[in-house]
């Protein structure tokens, strides 16, 4: 297995004529827990969307899991192996009930019904969300939504996690649980966050992204 999971080479991206990323080089190796900080609108979420293939850079190479990814087809595998937690959980959850939402990912991976049910059980044990399983998504609170969204990604057992502001809007207790979870169960991840304490606990590398600037600070 390759040592480098994600590698971006000279990525340049602009929305119409509005430049966001300029000649970015970025990599995630096995064991990396990368923190990504920077002001609003610096392009942090854009960077995650480029890795998952939702946005195509105007210039540069995307190499994920040892293969260069160019077309929509190449990214299907990427999305199955790299889990993206959206900034807004509302845009991530779309199934009628919590249970179905957690099951959606594993079903896409081609798992059988029994396997999927078992995964859902294990995950609800781990996240302590048994009481939520049958509830409709739109009746959850903000914090519950975040938890369910994370559970939905964890169910796919991705190689690497891309987490877009995972700690935003969580209370102290839930945040603590999240930190414990990320420490114990997540080996490789990229975390976009404004929460310095949170990053200090988890990240072993930190990058700073701002207009035209991109460098490692820790």
């Amino acid at each position, binding site marked *: 297995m390759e040592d480098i999971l994600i590698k971006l080479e000279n990525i340049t991206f602009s929305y119409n004529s509005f430049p966001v990323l300029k000649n970015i080089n970025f990599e995630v190796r096995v064991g990396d827990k990368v923190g990504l900080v920077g002001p609003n609108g610096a392009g942090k979420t854009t960077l995650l969307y480029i890795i998952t293939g939702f946005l195509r850079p105007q210039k540069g190479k995307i190499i994920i899991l040892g293969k260069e990814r160019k077309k929509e087809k190449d990214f*299907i595998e990427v999305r199955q192996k790299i889990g993206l937690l*959206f900034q807004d959980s509302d*845009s*991530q959850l779309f*199934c009628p009930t919590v249970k179905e939402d957690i099951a959606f990912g594993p079903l896409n991976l081609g798992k059988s019904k029994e396997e999927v049910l078992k995964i859902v059980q294990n995950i609800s044990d781990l996240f302590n969300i048994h009481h939520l399983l049958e509830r409709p998504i739109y009746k959850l609170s903000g914090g519950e939504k975040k938890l369910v969204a994370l559970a939905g990604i964890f169910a796919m057992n991705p190689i690497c996690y891309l987490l877009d502001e995972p700690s935003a809007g969580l209370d102290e207790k839930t945040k603590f649980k999240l930190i414990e979870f990320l420490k114990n169960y997540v080996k490789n991840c990229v975390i976009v966050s404004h929460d310095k304490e949170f990053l200090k606990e988890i990240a072993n590398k930190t990058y700073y992204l701002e207009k035209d600037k991109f460098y490692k600070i820790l």
Partner: protein
Amino acid sequence: MHLEVFAEGNSFLHKLDPRIKILSLTVFAILCAISKGLLVPFLYLLFSLSLILIANLNLKELTNRIFSANFFILFMWLFLPFTYQSNPYIHLGFLKISLKGIKYALSITLKCNAIILATIALLATSTIFDIAHAMLHFKIPTKLVTVFFLFYRYITVMHEEYIKIKRAVLARGFNPKTNIFTYKTYAYILGALLLKSFERSEEVYKAMLCRGFKGFFPLLDHFKMEKKDIIFGIFICLIFILIFLFN
């Protein structure tokens, strides 16, 4: 999604008072729709084309729209020539194609395209907000105008919600195939779209209420009717009537 591509521009038609544009388009649409034969609709089409030239619009975007609109007219061509009960017929194997049916379909095609082009040249060159504003000046009920404006505004919102859900689905490795799971997923996407749009509209409504919304949008800018607007209105309506009387 950017819907008001044509409203960005600086031509004579862009600067015209929207009220005049709505009035002249109404005259045009009625006269064009009730005109007979092939020649008059053809002249109307030529006139609409010249309006488009004056408006100086993005041609690529324009052909896109014309193309999708004509897709519906295509159905007329599939049925009219074969079902019109009139002589003379052209025999094509077991099919009978009526010449009058073809003429009829052609006339409808010409009229439709003339009206579509005129609508783009006259109405799409104003922003929807200006159009809604102009509608208020014509004493169209405030509620109706507000509904029209919000309806339009929410097309973009719905589209944004759709893109978000699509990303969520793809992010978890969805790969559409011909099976029940795929259809079920599409149904979920549709259901979620409906629920989310509803939720979002409720939220926006609350935000509007917090800022003192009383059922209509207060206006900030007002139109100024100038001499050139009135002259254009009279001139263009005269041409419409002349073409109509040409037959």
